[in-house]
């Protein structure tokens, strides 16, 4: 961020302008459509967000005007593509406040970022009898890669518990940090409940015992400002598509010392300095972890999405979504028979609920007929559902383009569910 921009954002946050949601909505072409004859009310943002015109245009422009392979061509197009690809890395670096651009590795998404760490750092450092610590509110993508690793290495997966509001029990988390713990992998924001974990504190606890921490930032990055240096986490992974960018592209941030010491994840082109049949020397960071031709258009599109997000400002987005969440929580609670699942004091962007004996799947179908898109099911968090003794929830999740009218439509839709199934 330039000094001028910084000054501007300070002034802006001092007067706390409300977002111009109408203007923002107009930047998302998909929101203009009607579903089943009703205006689309898109409240499935924790699954994936919609894309603003600028992201769509950036991807189209890339394919129309500069498509070429990167890091190898001497020709004009390859130079343009390489420059834009690396510029996007710089955008991600500033977005996460990472110290170095070489600590930003492009992957397919959060899932691949976590698997990368499990299969490289994990395989090298976790052995028989060791432990990996996660929490009870992880997405399957921050459970299964560690389970695979622990199975392979005869290590143990430990799980820090939560209370009935869906908040992590910090004391229990701390107790589970033992001399056998080789890494802690924790979500920043729960996708099923919206709980925001106190990452900074958790990292401090782990670092006191020299345990590195990976943070799953998939649900945090679109909603709250993230500063990996302030958090002091060792790894941070997120997905582009949840933050107004394309699918199939994501980021793993890692501290240089750790990334340097880790073996490569995949072998192939671009990740090498030199290859003979006897020996290969690996490329420097970040290329060591970027084997093969990457999703160049995806990276450039992600850069555009993060610039778009920064343009609005994550403080402003967080404030707007917090307002929506409070409005929605009050409104939905008024409806008879509704039980909210996940009522943490610190929450972001997610409202999970169940309605009497009505199965969430039926809720989802009826809301869909009203043009309202929500997610129903276990949200890839079966252990969270088990913890609350329910098979599934209905989940509404918010983004910058949602307005209070969307919540009103949701509340009306839930009344309709009761009419149809009541």
């Amino acid at each position: 961020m330039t000094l001028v921009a910084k000054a501007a954002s300070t002034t802006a946050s001092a007067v706390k302008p409300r977002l111009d949601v109408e203007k923002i909505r107009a930047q998302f072409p998909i929101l203009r459509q009607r579903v089943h004859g009703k205006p689309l009310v898109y409240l499935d943002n924790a699954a994936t967000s919609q894309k603003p015109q600028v992201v769509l245009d950036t991807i189209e422009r890339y394919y129309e005007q500069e498509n070429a392979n990167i890091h190898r061509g001497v020709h004009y197009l390859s130079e343009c593509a390489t420059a834009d690809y690396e510029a996007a890395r710089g955008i991600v670096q500033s977005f996460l406040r990472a110290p170095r651009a070489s600590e930003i590795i492009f992957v397919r998404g959060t899932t691949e970022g976590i698997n990368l760490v499990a299969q490289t750092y994990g395989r090298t450092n976790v052995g028989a009898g060791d432990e990996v610590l996660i929490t009870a509110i992880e997405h399957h993508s921050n459970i299964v890669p560690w389970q695979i690793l622990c199975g392979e290495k005869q290590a143990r997966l430990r799980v820090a518990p939560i209370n009935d509001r869906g908040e992590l029990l910090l004391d229990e988390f701390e107790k589970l940090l033992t001399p056998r713990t080789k890494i802690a992998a924790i979500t920043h924001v729960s996708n099923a409940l919206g709980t925001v974990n106190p990452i900074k504190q958790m990292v401090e606890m782990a670092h006191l015992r020299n345990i590195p921490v990976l943070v799953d930032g998939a649900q945090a990055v679109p909603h709250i400002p993230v500063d990996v240096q302030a958090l002091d986490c060792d790894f941070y992974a997120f997905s582009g598509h949840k933050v107004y960018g394309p699918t199939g592209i994501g980021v793993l941030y890692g501290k240089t010392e750790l990334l340097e010491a880790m073996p490569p994840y995949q072998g192939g082109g671009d990740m090498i300095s030199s290859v003979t049949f006897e020996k290969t020397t690996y490329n420097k960071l970040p290329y060591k972890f970027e084997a093969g031709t990457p999703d160049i258009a995806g990276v450039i599109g992600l850069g555009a999405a993060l610039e778009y997000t920064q343009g609005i400002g994550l403080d402003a987005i967080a404030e707007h979504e917090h307002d929506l969440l409070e409005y929605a929580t009050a409104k939905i609670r008024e409806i008879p028979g509704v039980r909210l699942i996940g009522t943490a004091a610190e929450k972001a962007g997610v409202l999970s609920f169940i309605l009497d004996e009505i199965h969430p799947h039926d809720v989802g179908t009826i809301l869909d007929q009203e043009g309202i898109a929500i997610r129903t099911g276990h949200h890839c968090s079966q252990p969270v559902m088990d913890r609350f003794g329910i098979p599934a929830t209905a989940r509404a999740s918010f983004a910058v383009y949602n307005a209070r009218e969307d919540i009103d439509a949701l509340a009306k839709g839930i009344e309709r569910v009761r009419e149809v199934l009541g």
Partner: protein
Amino acid sequence: MAELRDLYQEVILEHSKAPRNFKKLAAPNHQAEGFNPLCGDRFTVYLDVEGDVVRDVTFQGNGCAISKASASMMTQTVKGKTVAEAEKLFEHFHRFVTGQSRSEAEVADMGKLAVFSGVSEFPARVKCATLAWHTLQAALEGKQDQVSTE
């Protein structure tokens, strides 16, 4: 536009709220568990098969209105039928809820199960309507593994 009332017909709602044969059999000689991991629907189907005939069939578990009503009506329909008849019926039912068979004869053949005609307009719900049937088939075939309609 697909009509919600076509999907959630009164008979379906009634069965989902008060499912028939919703219990464990005392001594089942066949049983299987069906699970839709994406929705969290989970049913166990219990069978008492003597020779070639399904003498009794019951189920237990949790699921949406469609899957529960379908399981309930399946138990009513299948009871007393031969194994071959039950399997044939599932084949017809599957074609019916996926919209592949709609001739008068085929609708007549469905009998009470014709209330599930609306399902074909909601492709995401076909797996709900067929979960219990897949589970029944697995139980009849003596499969040990959990079945899934995902």
